[in-house]
C-alpha cells in the first residue's frame, strides 16, 4: 500500500494538535525529569536524550500511545464501552499519583477545548468520560478521530509532542540552550519513528513496559522540597 501524505486540512489539524500552544497545561509537567535533574541523574543533553530514548524504546509512553490508537479506533466505531474500558485501563496502569493526575487534568482540558471548538462533535462522548476522569491519551485519540486525522501520523505526532514537551522541561531545568534542545529533538527522530512503528504493531496482549526509573522519579517528585513542575 502506498502511503499518501496527509491532506492539507489534516496536516493543519495535526500541527494544531501537536502544538505546544495548545492550552492543555502540558508545559507544567516534567514526568519525573525535574526529580532526576535534582538528584543529579540527568545533568546534560546526552543524559536527557538517553532517558527519552529509553522511554520510547520500552517505557510507559508506549502504552499511552498504543491506547491512544485504540481510543481513536473506538471513537471511529462509536464504541463507548471500549473507550471506557481503555480509559479505566490507563488509570490503573499509571502507578504514580502525580502522573495519574497529570493525565486526567490534560485529558479534561483537551476535551473541554475540543467541545468548545465544536460543540456538536463530542455529542457521542460517554458520560463517564465527561466526568473528571478522562486520560489524556484517550482525549487525544478521540480528538484525532473527530478531526479525521490519519492514524500513523497521529501516533507519531503524539510521541513527538510528548518528547518536545519533556525536552522543553529539560531546557528550563538542566538548563540547556534553546539550540541544544532543538538539536536533541532532531537527534530523537529515529527513536521516534521506530517507536511509532512498533507501537502500531502491538496487540493487546503485548502491552507491557519497563519504566522503573520513571515510577521512582515520579514518586520522589512528590516529596521534592522545591518544585517548578507538577510532575
Amino acid at each position, binding site marked *: 500500500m502506498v502511503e499518501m501524505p496527509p491532506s492539507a486540512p489534516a496536516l493543519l489539524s495535526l500541527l494544531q494538535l501537536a502544538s505546544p500552544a495548545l492550552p492543555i497545561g502540558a508545559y507544567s509537567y516534567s514526568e519525573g525529569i525535574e526529580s532526576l535533574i535534582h538528584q543529579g541523574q540527568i545533568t546534560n543533553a546526552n543524559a536527557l536524550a538517553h*532517558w527519552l530514548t529509553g522511554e520510547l524504546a*520500552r517505557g510507559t509512553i508506549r*502504552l499511552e500511545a498504543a491506547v491512544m490508537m485504540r481510543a481513536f479506533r473506538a471513537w471511529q466505531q462509536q464504541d463507548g464501552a471500549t473507550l471506557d474500558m481503555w480509559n479505566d*485501563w490507563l*488509570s490503573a496502569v499509571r*502507578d504514580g499519583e502525580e502522573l495519574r493526575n497529570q493525565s486526567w487534568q490534560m485529558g479534561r482540558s483537551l476535551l473541554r477545548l475540543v467541545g468548545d471548538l465544536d460543540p456538536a462533535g463530542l455529542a457521542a462522548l460517554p458520560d463517564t468520560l465527561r466526568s473528571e476522569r478522562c486520560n489524556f491519551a484517550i482525549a487525544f485519540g478521540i480528538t484525532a478521530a473527530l478531526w479525521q486525522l490519519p492514524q500513523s501520523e497521529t501516533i507519531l505526532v503524539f510521541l513527538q509532542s510528548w518528547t518536545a514537551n519533556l525536552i522543553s522541561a529539560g531546557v528550563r531545568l538542566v538548563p540547556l540552550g534553546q539550540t541544544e534542545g532543538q538539536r536533541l529533538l532532531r537527534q530523537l527522530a529515529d527513536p521516534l519513528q521506530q517507536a511509532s512503528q512498533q507501537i502500531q504493531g502491538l496487540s493487546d496482549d503485548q502491552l*507491557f513496559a*519497563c519504566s*522503573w526509573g520513571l515510577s*521512582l522519579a515520579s514518586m520522589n517528585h512528590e516529596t521534592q522540597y522545591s518544585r517548578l513542575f507538577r510532575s
Partner: protein
Amino acid sequence: MTAVQPSAILPQAQSWHGQAHLTYQRQGAKTIPLVETQAPLKVQQPFYPEGSQACHTVLLHTAGGMVGNDLLSINISLEADAEALITTAAAAKIYSDHPQQLPAKILGHAQVGPGACLEWFPQETIVFEGAHYHPQWRIDLAPGATWVGWDILRLGRTARGERFVRGEVRSHLGVFQNQQPLWIDPQQILGSEALWSSPQALDECPVLATLAWLGRQPEVAWVNEARACGTDLIQRGTWGVTRLQQGLLCRYRGHSTTEARRWLEAVWHQIRPHYLGRSAVSPRVWQR
C-alpha cells in the same frame, strides 16, 4: 513407531504443573483453610500465631525451583470476613532454559470476599541470568475486601557475577473491584545491556521490589509513615511511595534483597493497623 527427537519431547517430559487451591472460610471467630495441592506444590500445617481469626499458610515448592515450561497454578479464595497470610518456605529459583528459552509460568487468581483480607508475602524470587519467567496474577476484591502483597525479585545471581542482560521477566498483575481495574502492573524486563544499564530501567540494580495495598484510599499520613520507614532503613537503593486508586504502592530498586525486605516488612508493620486494626505478626518461617 519412529523415534521422536529428544529436543522435541524434553520440555514436556521434564515440566511440572504444580497446583494449589486454597479456600479460606470464616467459621465463628476462626478462619479455616481448605487445601488441595498437586506436586511440586505443597502446603504446610496452618499456623495461628496471632489468634484464630488469621490463618498463616506456608506454600512449599518441593522441586526446589522452576525451569522453562513449568507451570504453577495458584487459586486462592477467601470467603466473607476470612483472614489469611500466605508466604513461601524459601526463595523461589527460576533456572535458565538455554537454548529453548521457554518461560516458567505462574497463573494466579485470588478472590477476596466481602470484609476479607488476603496478605500475600512470598519470599524472594531469584531469576537466573538467561531465564524466562512469566508470572500472571488477577486479584478480585469484593466490596470492603483488602489485598496486600509484595514481590521481591533478584535478577541474576549477583554473587556469581551474573548481570541480567539475557532472559526475560514478563509479569502481569491486575487488581479489580466490581470488574473495574484498580491497579494493573504489566512489567516486561527483557534482558539487554541497554535495559540493564539505563537509569530509565534497571540502572545496574539486580533487585526490584514492590509492595501494594489495595482496598481503600490511604491517608496522606500513612503514605508518609511508609516514607519515614524508607528514610530510616534504606541506604543504597532507590525507593518511593505513592498512592494508587484505592491503594498504596512502594517500589524499591537496588542491590540488596535484605534491604528491600527490611523496608517492606517495616511498611507492613506500619500499615497493618490501618486495614486490620491490629499489629502485624511475622510468620514463623521468616524467623531464621
